């Protein structure tokens, strides 16, 4: 697949097909990042549409000072933060507590080796449980953990996307993991 800078340059010159290729290339990353932060597929779909609409209308202002994907993730994070701000006025409750069965399933599967976990067919059943753990965290922690653990971005990329220093990225990730560790304390506690 063609590289982002070339596609962006072509799109800026009016090539619509280049934009279609950009969407096709990045839609999964955009959708999954938003889903991990927002915790709801319908909402993730709506925001992802808004993100690409913004890319379409604002591509002219992209000067290439950062990579296209960094710019794209920044739009994603900003749109998620806007929606989360709006959400504060609404009453939306997500299930964040694990039941006994979920705890046992998680404990069982996470006791395996990494390679075995990746191959495990029960992964599909556990999707909601993972999202439950994410939903239990404050928004800032969800964002940094998503960018690091789900999207596999470097500290440098995260600092550019969130416009914070590298030191802050380090501390925020540490704190987010501490909170997740507290939430999942049953994994290493005898029950």
């Amino acid at each position, binding site marked *: 697949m063609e590289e982002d800078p070339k596609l962006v340059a072509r799109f800026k010159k009016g090539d619509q097909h280049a934009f*279609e290729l950009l*969407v*096709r290339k990045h*839609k*999964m990353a955009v*959708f*999954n990042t938003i*889903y*991990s932060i927002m915790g709801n*597929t*319908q909402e*993730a*779909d709506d925001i*992802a*549409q808004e993100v*690409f*609409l913004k890319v*379409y*209308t604002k591509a002219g202002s992209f000067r290439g000072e950062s990579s296209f994907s960094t710019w794209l993730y920044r739009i994603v994070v900003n749109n998620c933060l806007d929606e989360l701000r709006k959400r504060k006025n609404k009453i939306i409750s997500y299930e964040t507590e694990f039941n006994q069965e979920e705890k046992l399933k*998680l404990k069982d*599967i*996470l006791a395996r080796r*990494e390679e075995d*976990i*990746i191959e495990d067919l029960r*992964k*599909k059943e*556990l*999707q909601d*449980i*993972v999202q439950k*753990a994410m939903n239990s965290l404050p928004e800032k922690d969800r964002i940094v953990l998503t960018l*690091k*653990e*789900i999207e596999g971005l*470097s*500290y440098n990329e995260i600092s550019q996307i969130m416009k914070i220093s590298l030191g802050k990225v*380090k*501390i925020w*990730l*540490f704190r987010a*993991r*501490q909170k*997740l*560790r507290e939430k*999942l304390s049953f*994994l*290493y506690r005898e029950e």
Partner: protein
Amino acid sequence: MSCNKFRILLSAYLDQEIAKDEEKELFEHLKMCAGCARELEYLKQIRKIFLLKERKEPEEFFETRLFTRIKDKEKQPVWQAYLTAFKKSIFVVLIFILLVVGFLNYKKFSYQRRTEVISDLLIDGQVEENFEGEVLAIYYGPPR
């Protein structure tokens, strides 16, 4: 260095975002501190949870829906696009204009009212003068 500092380093170590000298220092500490060594194992265990996460597909016809929206947006007249983009700013400007117009009208109205009251008083003064003239005429006859 305190354990707290090493705990932050543990998180960075997991992400392979740690400097060589820091890594060396961390390993030295882990040899001596059972608490931090245990913490590293917990973090590794918890991190595995993200291996379970599978990438989801967006809702059906994502691209078709997006390109339809883009086409609709392009068909939109320019003024409508501006209206949507600057909805909030337009609202603020309208409120400001309403406030200014309201203030100016209030000032004008209060000035008018004051003038009316003064002229009322003047008219009343004249009525009083006429009345006085009429009374004098009754007593002393019409003025010559």
